[in-house]
């Protein structure tokens, strides 16, 4: 059952609130100081956050920033608890990017209903990949269209893991899932660190991902992704295979073939100069580029240099 972290104490002014929530099977974790709350988020993230405005001075904003900064946690709904006066003064929603609000005095039923609504809404908009928790296809198409409409030139980057299928056959699907999750983390963290503004990371499915960054950052992001992948990769491959530089597994025709270590290929499609007007054209250009980059050995990225759209 869902766990609710409550940062602040006003909603407990009515002691029944906790009872009502717990009666419905929610686990309530009260938290009065910001360090404890952040530690909770790190070690054992809750499913919902109820946050009191003005919690621990600037602790409210620290917490929101921490939740929204971490792409794996952006799905956690935040309910902000405010006072009547806050509403009179107006609230800067840029400063408080939350999902819903509760106004004091809050009735226990109100808290319960809002919590249930937050859960329902989260399930509705969720096209996220269940493994990586990254946005899925619908969100990816929207993000590509947004990139095409953007005034800044963006780069849509298609990522794919080489030798993933034989790795999966050889090591088993649980280890395969680890690799998929690992690549998702590497992508998110690099994009987050180098090109946070207007960026997007999505998971098409399996070993295919898309990330979108501004065109001028694309090369730096690709290089860092490949560099980090090489550092982490060997944790997911048995030492003897690392030593051999690959492993032997049956290919699609059932013949014993030796495969290289896992590597990553990235096809980079800049969207500038108005050369695309539809996301379908981007994916067509991408599949041509993917073909080229996959043909190269090892970890690579290739930037589409054409300044016109050539239909396949």
């Amino acid at each position, binding site marked *: 059952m869902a766990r609710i972290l409550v940062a602040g104490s006003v909603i407990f002014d009515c002691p029944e609130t906790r009872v009502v929530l717990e009666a419905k099977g929610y686990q309530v974790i009260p938290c009065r100081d910001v*360090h404890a709350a952040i530690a909770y988020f790190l070690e054992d993230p809750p499913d919902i956050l109820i946050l009191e405005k003005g919690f621990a001075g600037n602790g409210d904003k620290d917490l929101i920033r921490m939740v929204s900064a*971490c792409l794996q946690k952006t799905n956690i709904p935040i309910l902000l608890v405010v006072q009547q006066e806050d509403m009179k003064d107006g609230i800067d929603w840029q400063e408080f990017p939350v999902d819903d609000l509760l106004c004091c005095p809050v009735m226990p039923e109100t808290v319960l209903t809002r919590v249930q609504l937050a859960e329902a809404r989260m399930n509705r908009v969720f096209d996220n990949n269940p493994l990586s928790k990254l946005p899925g296809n619908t969100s990816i198409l929207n993000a590509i269209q947004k990139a095409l409409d953007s005034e800044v030139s963006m780069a849509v980057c298609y990522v794919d893991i080489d030798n993933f299928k034989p790795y999966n056959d050889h090591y088993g699907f649980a280890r395969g899932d680890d690799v998929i999750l690992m690549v998702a983390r590497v992508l998110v963290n690099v994009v987050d660190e180098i090109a946070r503004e207007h960026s997007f990371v999505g998971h098409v499915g399996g070993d295919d991902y898309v990330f979108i960054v501004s065109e001028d950052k694309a090369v730096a992001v690709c290089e860092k992704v490949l560099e980090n992948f090489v550092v982490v990769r060997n*944790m997911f491959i048995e030492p003897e295979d690392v030593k051999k530089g690959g492993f032997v597994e049956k290919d699609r025709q059932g013949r014993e073939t030796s495969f290289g270590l896992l590597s990553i290929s990235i096809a980079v499609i800049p969207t500038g100069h108005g050369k695309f007007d539809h996301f379908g054209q981007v994916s067509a250009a991408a599949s041509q580029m993917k073909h080229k980059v996959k043909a190269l050995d090892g970890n690579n990225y290739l930037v589409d240099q054409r300044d016109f759209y050539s239909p396949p």
Partner: protein
Amino acid sequence: MEDAKRQGFKAALRETKNLPTLPGIVVKLTRMADDPDSTTEQMGRVLSKDHILAAKLLMLVNSAFYGFPQRISSLSSAMILLGFNVVKSLIISASIFEMMEKQDVELWEHSLGCAVVCNVVAKRIGVEEPEEVSTAGLIHDIGKVAIKMELPQEYAKITRLMQERKITMRQAELEVLGLDHAEAGAWLTKIWNLPPRLIEPIGCHHDPLQAKAEQLSSAIIHFSDILIRGMGYGHAGDDKVPKLDKQAWELLGLSQEDIDQVIDEVEEKLWEVKGFSLEIQAEAEAPDSAAKS
């Protein structure tokens, strides 16, 4: 009876989550976290010099939520997989010693010194993952911090016993708790889901031949622990340098010439470590340091 007592202490240690570290290192890292120009790598270099934060980083990346239980043993991989923001939050939530005592600094120095020796020795022998061995060396004495923080009364008894009877800290621990800091450290890191490749060397650093899968790493840490004590850097809680296990020594296969070169190399690297330690201690005393509770 003896066993029940031991189990009781293990149960108390099980709850250990937020072990404190030196204020200076947290101040330095907090400043880096606030600086938009600092990178994950730069923070990683500082973080990997602190046995408590390093263990915490590995605990996080190997927790079920982050999805890689018992897989990640390298600190640089942990940094890459957790990302800048999680590392930043880890620093914000870090706890520090309320009263910084001389022995806390000295144990920190001993741990870092041991990691340096481990790295030099592991590379000399040609171990495949030298970083893994130095990480195990860095956190090999984490059990000592846990005993001190979680079992303060017993810790006081241990200290008293050591002084009265002139015995090693380990002997005193065994007498008071029925378990030593090596076992405590292995127990904790097991609960934290750290990889077995790190747990076993921590647990066997006083008795490396007990190790089953990781005998070589255990022997390297055993030897490094003794060498760094002998070189007089840091302090591990007692003045008695443990006896070098003969078989463990043979396992390393180091010649006299190797040893000379290892010592030279370690001495050179210790300059950097000493400088860093002074910087950290100055950091904690600086008037503008953001003291946190």
